[in-house]
């Protein structure tokens, strides 16, 4: 834990970082990769299993065609080549939560390879080259009981949950990302963030890092500036938030640099990331490459996606996020900063739909990033699951524009919508929240205010029109904020003329 660090500015002055990112994505297929078991998250342990995903003797895999389709769509979205013919292979190694003690994966014949994604960091674009995207199955999950660390050492016993075993995974591996300099940690974060957005747009995964449906390993190495070589890398496993991706990369750069500057050398190893302390610690040494004894899986026939099918899938790909953002920003006239905030808040699609429902870009943005973002934050949920639809937001804004609500009332209407009382019009009707501009009711309130505040009335009669504000306030209070302020002012001046 006592790894010394080099100040970051010194690191980037002396070294060139090389990044490598391996992202595991759990697909959101209804059933597992090789059997018909459901894939729902959070079910009771071992309730979503069968002979095949438990690896019972005699059981055999049968391929989930939807998983292959998702893999191809991901490959296409990452500008990859799609293999004309590929196979699954067995990756043989032992682990108690691995049902067969081999993982059905792809080895030298991935379904997608040689692609790229353009990543934006503060207005600059970095091209991250994709080496491969391949299909594999997830393993089970071990729970080590007893002991203080939750790790296997010191535990009294271990429990294994196989619900996750066999859930389809796509592993996306980048080539070494070079030339990012001081921006390496930001590029890492932006890559994973953009990848998340892309997968979300494809609808192939829930991409919830906190639930493990998107897991990122950060490989990092340093080489002396300008040397043009690659240093020894470390692999920080299972970093589970975008912020941590950036922090872990930065930490490893500072740690590597301190060791190299001190004449030491980097041990090729896996490392664990600690979210709470912001450091990595040594995991497993990986100095000699493990021998996985790969060979083609004999129980599965090769996959040969027809070119027609691939073309069909390509034709139905959603607009790439990068292009979509540029298009929307131009359409909406947002500044770079506004656009980044909107994307960062996960509100891009919501704003787009709100505009489609009739709101102006600025007003759509105002609601989602202001009032609604605050409420999402308070209730620890995300905007999309807040319970307010883009159509609701557009309707509230329309009521404001029509003069039927002011800002304060509009917020109360949203309260009602959030409480499940129906759409904005239902809430206005049920709670009587509309602005009152009926002269009869307003005149009565104005007269009451004049009667209650004779001094103020006198001042106005004397020509001190500015004093009208106090009377307006009294009327508004009387009418619980629902009075049309402009009309109230006119009435006051009329009565006291």
């Amino acid at each position, binding site marked *: 834990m006592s790894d010394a660090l080099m100040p970051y500015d010194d690191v980037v002055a002396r070294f060139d970082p090389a990044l490598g990112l391996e992202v595991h994505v759990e697909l959101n297929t209804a059933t597992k990769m090789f059997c018909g078991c459901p894939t729902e998250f959070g079910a009771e342990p071992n309730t979503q299993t069968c*002979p095949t995903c*438990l*690896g*019972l*003797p*005699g*059981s*055999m*895999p*049968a*391929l989930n065609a939807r998983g292959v389709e998702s893999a191809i769509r991901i490959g296409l979205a990452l500008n990859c080549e799609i293999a004309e013919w590929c196979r699954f292979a*067995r990756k*043989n190694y*032992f682990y*108690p939560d691995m*049902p*067969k*003690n*081999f993982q059905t994966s792809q080895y030298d014949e991935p379904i997608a390879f040689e692609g790229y994604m353009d990543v934006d960091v503060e207005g600059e674009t970095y091209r991250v080259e994709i080496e491969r995207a391949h299909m594999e199955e997830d393993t089970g999950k071990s729970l080590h009981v007893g002991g203080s660390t939750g790790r*296997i050492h010191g535990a009294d016993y*271990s429990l*294994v949950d196989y619900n996750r075993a066999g859930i389809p995974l796509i592993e996306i591996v980048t080539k070494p990302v070079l030339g990012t300099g001081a921006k390496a940690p930001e590029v890492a974060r932006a890559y994973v963030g953009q990848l998340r957005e892309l997968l979300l747009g494809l609808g192939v995964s829930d991409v919830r890092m906190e639930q493990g449906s998107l897991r990122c390993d950060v490989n990092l190495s340093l080489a002396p500036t300008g040397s043009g070589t690659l240093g020894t890398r470390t692999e920080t496993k299972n970093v589970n938030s975008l912020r941590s991706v950036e922090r872990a990369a930065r930490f490893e750069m500072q740690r590597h640099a301190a060791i190299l500057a001190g004449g030491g050398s980097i041990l090729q190893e896996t490392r664990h990331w600690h979210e709470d302390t912001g450091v990595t610690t040594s995991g497993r040494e990986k100095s000699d*490459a493990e*021998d996985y*004894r*790969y*060979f083609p899986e*004999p*129980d*599965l*026939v090769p996959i040969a996606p027809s070119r027609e099918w691939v073309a069909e899938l390509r034709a139905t790909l959603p607009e790439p996020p990068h292009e979509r953002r540029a298009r929307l920003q131009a359409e909406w006239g947002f500044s770079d900063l506004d656009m980044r905030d909107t994307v960062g808040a996960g509100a891009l699609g919501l704003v787009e739909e709100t505009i489609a429902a009739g709101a102006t870009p600025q007003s759509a943005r105002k609601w989602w990033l202001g009032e609604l973002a605050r409420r999402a934050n308070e209730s620890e949920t995300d905007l999309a699951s807040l319970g307010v639809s883009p159509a609701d937001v557009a309707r509230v804004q329309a009521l404001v524009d029509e003069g039927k609500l002011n800002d304060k009332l509009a917020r109360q209407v949203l309260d009602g919508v959030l409480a499940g009382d129906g759409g904005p019009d239902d809430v206005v009707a049920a709670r009587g929240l509309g602005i009152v501009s009926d002269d009869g009711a307003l005149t009565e309130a104005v007269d009451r205010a004049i009667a209650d505040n004779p001094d103020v009335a006198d001042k106005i009669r004397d020509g001190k029109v500015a004093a009208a504000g106090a009377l307006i306030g009294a009327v508004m209070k009387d009418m619980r904020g629902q009075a049309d302020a402009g009309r109230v002012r006119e009435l006051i001046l009329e009565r006291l003329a």
Partner: protein
Amino acid sequence: MSAPETRTAAELADALASGDLTSVALTQAHLDRIADVDGAVHAFLQVDAEGALRDAAAADERRGSGQPASALDGVPIAVKDVLATRGLPTTCGSRILEGWVPPYDATVVARLRAAGLPILGKTNMDEFAMGSSTEHSAYGPTHNPWDLTRIPGGSGGGSAAAVAAYEAPLAIGTDTGGSIRQPGAVTGTVGVKPTYGGVSRYGLIALANSLDQAGPVTRTVLDAAMLHEVIGGHDPLDSTSIDAPLPGLVDAARRGADGDLTGVRIGVVTELGGEGYQAGVLARFRESVELMTRAGAEVVEVSCPHFVHALATYYLILPAEASSNLARFDAMRYGLRVTPDGSPSAEDVMRVTREAGFGDEVKRRIILGTYALSSGYYDAYYGQAQKVRTLIARDFDAAFERADVLVSPTAPTTAFKLGEKVDDPLAMYLNDLATIPANLSGVPGISVPSGLADEDGLPAGVQILAPATADDRVYRVGAALESLLAQQWGGRLLDQAPALEGAR
């Protein structure tokens, strides 16, 4: 012989259909026979009298209401212990699976149940189907009913012996390198290895996935065809299973029974029948070819030059796949668990359990396979073997251009003595010389009893191979040869087997 257990499955099906016999009586007769002779033969690892009688009663009920589930409804069967049977222990002949009761049925077993065949029990086998003599079973060897001091073949010696000893009219075996055909040859029974993918492998505990094939073990070719039609056909749970209807196998066997082979081209494989073959085995083979010629067949010599490498190829591919398949037996979820003293790690438990749970032959092949797949050796061994496999498939293609079926002796010798080769793996491996090429290429084959070798009076077999998916051809030619030989002998070969001690 009139006892029901000596009749063929086809005859029994007729008797059940006509009401001359009930399935309960038939099943009980076989259970009695097992009780009488299995102490000497040891064909069974597990007998399920209760389950078999319950299923037999259900079969009788279906017959009674005029709704039999299949032609073989009510005819009992024995199943090799390599197939998962729900509720019935399945051990693969290994200590490591002792007492394991699968929660599911293999597709073959599910189809037997759906067709109404009562399952008598699970038959003995070489551990994880590794062997040619059933001496590698962790539960002791099976004895050949023709001579109890001899091996019944392997790995499916239990299935073959059960059928030969009249303990079961039908049995299921599996054939990875000849484990249905070679035991068939040395016990005087009929054994069929269907086309790879013709019978589902789901629930068949894999030895070598790219070679394994379940198939019928019977006393006649027609019985095998009937059983094959019950268990065969596409299974979505096995992605390597062939998605096409089976050819008419029973029809082919019935057509063949007239013994007419006019216009059929029979290819005698030069490489399968020379050095290393016992004289009596070769003599019976030549007689068979002669009979087929007289029945109108055209005989051609064909050469398959790469067959000489088949054994070496097989012994690289098989252990490689097996080493990976056997990795799951790690004491974590099922079967044996041996826990060393102290506070052992998961690795310690695996190591000690596998040491105690696997026999020598299994360990030998795991080590061979692990080596053949390891980095740096993969290309030299596994990769090279796959290339030779392709060449062997091309030999078959060329041979089938010139011949409709290929023939050879099934095994080079008759049954050898128990213990004779158990410490000499290479000598043991040579037994599968003639059967292995079919597994490497996926083509179907049958072994038909060809008579008794002059020097020891023990059964020998003729193997008939056909191109992939042409399983009907092996039944047609097999039935023809069977009928020609029966005319010559004046009856079935098995009728010449000595009575077993204790047999009624």
